[in-house]
């Protein structure tokens, strides 16, 4: 029995040592590396749309923000709908979203205390070059949507309450169409996956230009309609109301809001993507920008200039 007893003691020791090791590894380790630059270890939770993460913009902005303010940016990339929901629940400090109607409701309900325009880019209607519904000749986005529905041509919708999905819904509404039937499919996935499905099925979809450009080489999809002011994609930063929940770090959120709007950051946003895609993905717009003036003109029925 001595052997057994000894075996048990040894096992116990081993177990305790293992457990201690686990605790040691599991605990956050301060005083290491990056933490030296911001002793407070302050963090800000940013709930944002997938396009800012998928394009890689946040990977560029996060280290700059840390360098400037000593605050670590924790971006949570979800759809705009989910981002606003996180803000409403007080699970995020600041939001970067592109779903204007939902944002206005959010502000009206008092969930946000500050909302500023950061940047814009645009949505494009993409599809196979064959273009069975004749979308390329349409004079506006609403007319293009009408043509797709009339032709019963396959259309892939995000179907996920994202900003892109909200815009698509807006266009159907403007065209007086309730999209349903065999031709209308909800992918329930992010922009990249939706574009892949669209390419596989020879369908149409609406994409933000950035994600489309990032995937263009593999897709074999053409931009069939662009330039309609109704397709403008405006990104706003929203500071979450501290009354929405516990522990909301409004000071850190405000620091991120201000960081996005200073000329230096705006220049970084304006230059982002040129190297990889040959053209910028976003137009900085903190102090207003010429593209936004288009929005003031009557949205529907404006002829498409470029393409």
């Amino acid at each position, binding site marked *: *029995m001595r052997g*057994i007893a000894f*075996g*048990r003691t040894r*096992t116990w020791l081993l*177990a305790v040592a*293992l*457990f201690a090791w*686990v605790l040691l*590894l*599991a*605990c*956050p380790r301060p005083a290491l590396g990056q933490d030296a630059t911001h002793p407070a270890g302050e963090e800000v*939770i940013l709930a944002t749309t*997938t396009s800012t*993460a*998928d*394009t*890689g913009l946040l*990977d560029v902005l*996060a280290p700059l923000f840390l360098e400037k303010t000593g605050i*670590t940016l*924790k*971006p*949570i*990339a979800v759809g705009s709908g989910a981002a606003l929901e996180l803000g409403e*629940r*007080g*699970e995020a400090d600041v939001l970067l979203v592109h779903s204007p109607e939902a944002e206005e409701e959010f502000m009206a309900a008092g969930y946000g205390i500050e909302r500023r325009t950061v940047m814009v880019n645009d949505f494009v209607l993409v599809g196979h070059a064959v273009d069975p519904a004749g979308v390329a000749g349409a004079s506006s986005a609403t007319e293009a949507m009408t043509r797709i529905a009339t032709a019963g041509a396959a259309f892939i919708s995000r179907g996920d309450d994202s900003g892109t999905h909200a815009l698509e819904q807006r266009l159907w509404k403007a065209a007086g169409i309730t999209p349903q039937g065999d031709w209308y499919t909800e992918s329930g996935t*992010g*922009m*990249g*996956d939706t574009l892949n499905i669209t390419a596989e099925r020879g369908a149409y979809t609406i994409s933000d230009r950035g*994600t489309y450009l*990032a*995937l263009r080489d*593999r897709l074999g999809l053409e931009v069939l309609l662009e330039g309609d002011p109704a397709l403008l994609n405006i990104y706003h930063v929203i500071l979450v109301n501290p009354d929405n*929940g*516990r*522990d*909301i770090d409004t000071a850190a959120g405000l620091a991120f809001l201000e960081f996005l709007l200073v000329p230096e950051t705006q220049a970084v946003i304006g230059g982002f993507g040129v190297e990889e895609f040959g053209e910028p993905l976003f137009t900085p717009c903190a102090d207003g920008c010429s593209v936004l003036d288009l929005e003031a003109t009557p949205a529907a029925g404006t002829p498409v200039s470029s393409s």
Partner: protein
Amino acid sequence: MNDLTGGLAEAGRLLFGGNPEVWEIVRLSLRVSLIATTIALFLGLPAGATLALVRFPGRSMAVGAVYAGMGLPPIVAGLLVSLLLWRNGPFGAAGLLYTPAAMILAQALIATPVVAGLTMAAVSALDPRYRLQLLALGAGRLQAVWWLLREARLPLIAAVIAGFGAVISEVGAAMMVGGNIKGETRVLTTATVLEVSRGHFETALALSFVLLGLTYLVTIALTLLQRRADPARS
């Protein structure tokens, strides 16, 4: 096929091209999943052994719960842990959401039923006479359990392999409670998802190969341990 070979070549470039980010992701994946498996081992082993050896009221319901838990979808585990760790949730004050600790918690939740269920099956499969013999030889209850677990060590190592395999490969919980934050909570699976949605299929494939290789190495290490533990081979 070009994609596959391209991915393999890219994997080599990522690992040995002096890119510290990939190594950081590999380290974090290993750290999170190994700790989660260790926790699952400490919880699942006693739980499984108890369920196999002790008769108590409600035991069959507990056994059913463990078996159902073996199929717990990672996204459900992620959602549960999120609800607990949200700022406005019961443990919000700890500030653990979107940290590796939250990922460890969720993955331990996934792996514990796997370890417990397989432990239960392994100990139940032992000859009941062995246990009686141990008790007859004067072993205390804990000693008896210890020797029974020793006897069942081969399937127990398989249980650890299964638990580790379940967590290193899951993406739902890691994405949800970790947030896929670069340099903090980005692991191999969530990085792969991100690269796919970015359209970087080659990088995604490369990360998949790294993940496969890592899982293979850890499994091999555990299998070697299993062999050394196999009395038929020593």
